[in-house]
């Protein structure tokens, strides 16, 4: 989308020059975002949007399963659950009860890198939400009975997402095999034996280390003014003391020396195939080119892999690719559902052919244009809701250290060249750089055994 990017750039440059002579140009998107860092180190970012009388407040803590080790795998995610289970002023069950009784709703998610708490509420509840967040950031309680009950909840979540879901099961196995050293090999939900055995003191230590204001960022988007939000943050959050910064993750994943393979045998009607390629951290300069390459390979029915695997050779039901956004070098994934009765090796062979082709011949100008147009349209789609804006701001601030990079992103995609895409393809999509996982229906596996 050359057009929107140009528009953004023009607005940014043109306004100071011509603003006084003509009718003022419309302000560039994002020009009304304001931020302030509290004395305890927590940054607050505010984007007023008065379309609806509601507010999205997201609190991003820089902690996830990469901060775990054997014995406490899954603890960050379990902790996310415990953050709703009572503090000092608001006891067990009151956080949700009080929020909902005032028209608000919440959720949270944990991944390998971050834990994000999301509140959506009418603006009438703004100060109350600060009160609730401050209470749990400072005074979380850990009731033994609640911890035991919550173990059951989290194990049930694991059963649905992993144990009884073939895609989730294979994903966990491939992820674990792709990393030998770095804690990215730990599944976010945790290994079952750890879910059953982590202790009260593990939680207390985790809270003190990671749930400090200096390890968090607050994003507020909606029917508010920056001044009122900053004032509330000073009242409710600023008195919470900072903590020593958590230890950095020291371990670096050594270079992969050859292709790895994982096979899962399971009751199934359709086989699955997943490939995980090592790729860069969020700030890796190759990522803009990589994102466009993934679009060309796998987004939409005109993409290269969809056409070959699904439309032309009819060996797969679907195919998708995505890159993990992560603090440390992580993975770029390819997942495909294989049609019943088709050997996953056939699917793999076609993928290999397509990867070889893009490495040797690169992409066309039309494909590059398509990918930037898709990126541009998706940028505007992320701007449709206060929730989407809060998610985007938090993502860029947390992983790039600067929310304003969000508004540069369309232009950055626009600047990517075909040569850069070809180069990144050659760098990432090597067999020695990947782990290949297949889920094979048990019946098929048994038949192969007898042969």
């Amino acid at each position: 989308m050359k057009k929107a990017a140009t528009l953004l750039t023009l607005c940014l440059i043109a306004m100071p020059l011509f603003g006084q002579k003509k009718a003022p140009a419309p302000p560039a998107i994002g020009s009304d975002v304001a931020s302030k860092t509290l004395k305890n180190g927590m940054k607050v970012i505010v984007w007023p949007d008065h379309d609806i009388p509601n507010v999205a407040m997201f609190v991003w803590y820089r902690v996830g399963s990469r901060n775990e080790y054997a014995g406490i795998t899954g603890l960050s995610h379990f902790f996310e659950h415990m953050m709703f289970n009572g503090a000092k002023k608001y006891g067990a069950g009151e956080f949700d009860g009080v929020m909902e009784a005032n028209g608000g709703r919440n959720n949270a998610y944990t991944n390998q890198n971050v834990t994000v708490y999301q509140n959506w509420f009418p603006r009438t509840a703004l100060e109350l939400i600060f009160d609730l967040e401050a209470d749990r950031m400072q005074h979380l309680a850990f009731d033994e009975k609640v911890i035991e009950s919550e173990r059951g909840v989290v194990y049930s979540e694991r059963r649905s997402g992993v144990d009884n879901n073939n895609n989730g099961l294979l994903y966990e196995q491939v992820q674990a095999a792709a990393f030998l050293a770095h804690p990215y090999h730990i599944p976010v939900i945790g290994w079952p034996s750890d879910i059953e055995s982590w202790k009260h003191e593990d939680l207390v230590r985790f809270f003190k280390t990671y749930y400090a204001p200096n390890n968090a960022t607050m994003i507020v988007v909606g029917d508010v003014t920056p001044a009122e939000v900053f004032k509330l943050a000073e009242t409710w959050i600023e008195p919470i003391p900072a903590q020593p910064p958590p230890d950095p993750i020291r371990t670096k994943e050594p270079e992969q020396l050859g292709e790895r393979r994982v096979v899962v045998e399971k009751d199934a009607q359709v086989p699955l195939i997943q490939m995980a390629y090592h790729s860069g951290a969020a700030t890796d300069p190759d990522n803009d080119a990589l994102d466009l390459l993934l679009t060309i390979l796998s987004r939409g029915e005109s993409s290269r892999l969809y056409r070959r695997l699904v439309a032309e050779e009819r060996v797969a039901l679907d195919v998708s690719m995505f890159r993990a956004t992560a603090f440390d070098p992580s993975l770029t994934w390819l997942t495909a559902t294989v049609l019943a009765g088709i050997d996953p090796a056939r699917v793999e062979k076609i993928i290999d052919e397509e990867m070889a082709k893009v490495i040797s011949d690169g992409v066309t100008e039309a494909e590059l244009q398509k990918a930037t147009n898709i990126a541009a349209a998706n940028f505007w789609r992320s701007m449709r809701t206060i929730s989407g804006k809060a998610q985007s701001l938090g993502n860029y601030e947390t992983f790039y250290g600067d929310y304003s990079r969000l508004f540069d992103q369309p232009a950055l995609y626009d600047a990517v060249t075909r040569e850069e895409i070809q180069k990144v393809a050659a760098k990432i999509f090597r067999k020695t750089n990947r782990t290949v996982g297949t889920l094979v229906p048990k019946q098929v596996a048994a038949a192969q055994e007898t042969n």
Partner: protein
Amino acid sequence: MNRMKVALAALLLFAAGHASAETPVTAKLADVKLPRYEQVRLPNGLTLLLMERHDVPLIAFHGRLRGGALADPQGKEGVGAIAAELIQKGSGKRNAQQFAEAVDSVGGQLSVSAGREATTISAEFMAKDRGLMLELLSDILRRPSLPKEEFEKVSQREIESIRAAKDGDPRNLVPRYFNAFLFASHPYGRAASESSLGTIAHEDVANYVRDQFGADRAIFAFVGAFDAKSFAAEVRKTFGDWKKASGALAAAGDTKPATGRRVLLVDKPDATQTYFSIGNVGMARTDSDRVLADVANIAFGGRFTSMLNTELRIKSGLSYGASSSLVRETKPGTVSINSYTKTETTGKALDLALEVLGRLRSDGLDATTLASVQRYAVGQFPPTLETGGQLAARLTELSFYGLDRSDVETYASKIQSAEREGVQRVINRLYPAEENLTFVLVGNAAEIREVAKKYGEVTEIKITDPRFAP
């Protein structure tokens, strides 16, 4: 950007000032006003709704074509679903690949699916591409080429996607079984399955498109960055000469609650958790008690602190989640409790769910819960009408069910004027008594077969059986 003109005065009274645990009960939140939109009916019967919005440079489209799965011939369930896919695989001057290129190359989105009573079309394009968007919509609906080789691919994929779903998270599957088992021979129970899809020929799909697609079945809404007057002229030019549908309009007869208890047990031998739905037939979209039903359902199983989630998750840790849902269409759809628990606690969780249902029916909502639900429902309503796509879908929904803007604009005040007695009356009308319940259990039958018998006469099928009901 003032897409939703809400009278702010009332809200500002309670803006930041105090942090008591509850804003005053009398806090009267304003009703949401739908922004201005144009509604016209073209001479060929097409209903056109247009709303200008300029916050992002996008245009959202939502369309409904009356018919959907209701128009599937008996025994050939899934014809409408295949048609919805196949019209995107070649139309006008483009073949399947060229069509995909046309959508993707400008970053557009377009999808078609067959719902129970209508085929729905959703699209969103950059505003500058509105001409292309109209051309593509017109091509798929008026000039689909329905190529035979694409038909083979589409029908194979429909079957395979059901198989893949059966290997995936069972939470997505239970509603399909519940619907098929509860409604049985009523058209609402018709479900595309591996076996019905296997009987469908290309000719069936061609007949469906020929008979069911037409201007008089269509409701179109466009919301986004355009000039309503000139865009209306473009839409008229594109669709003004679209013919009416030639076949009879499919309609469903009344749905009636099932009497007695019965259980469908779906065997998934490697399951470590049992996934269940319990319920019956509920209410229609246009029911005059619909707002009171929302109040009751939020309290029962429609939010985190609902009665069901409190008992099955928060207090007992039996499940990651428990909820209740209402499916409301032209006729009453399902009302159901949905949850899951590890195999060993299946009976315990089912008993607890029934106990909560009993309590809802006997005690209703206390005053505190009612007040909480009222604030919750009103507070969470504006974000449901925030995007162009949401507004377009709402406009076609109102038109489809013969409702007007007051359905949206009086929602908050109706929620706020709900009283305990009225809610109690609707609870007893809507939620089934314990003797009239249909159960679906997806799990390891060898482990839960005996438990299942406690709840009614059991019918058992395998998850690999190519259908969703016996």
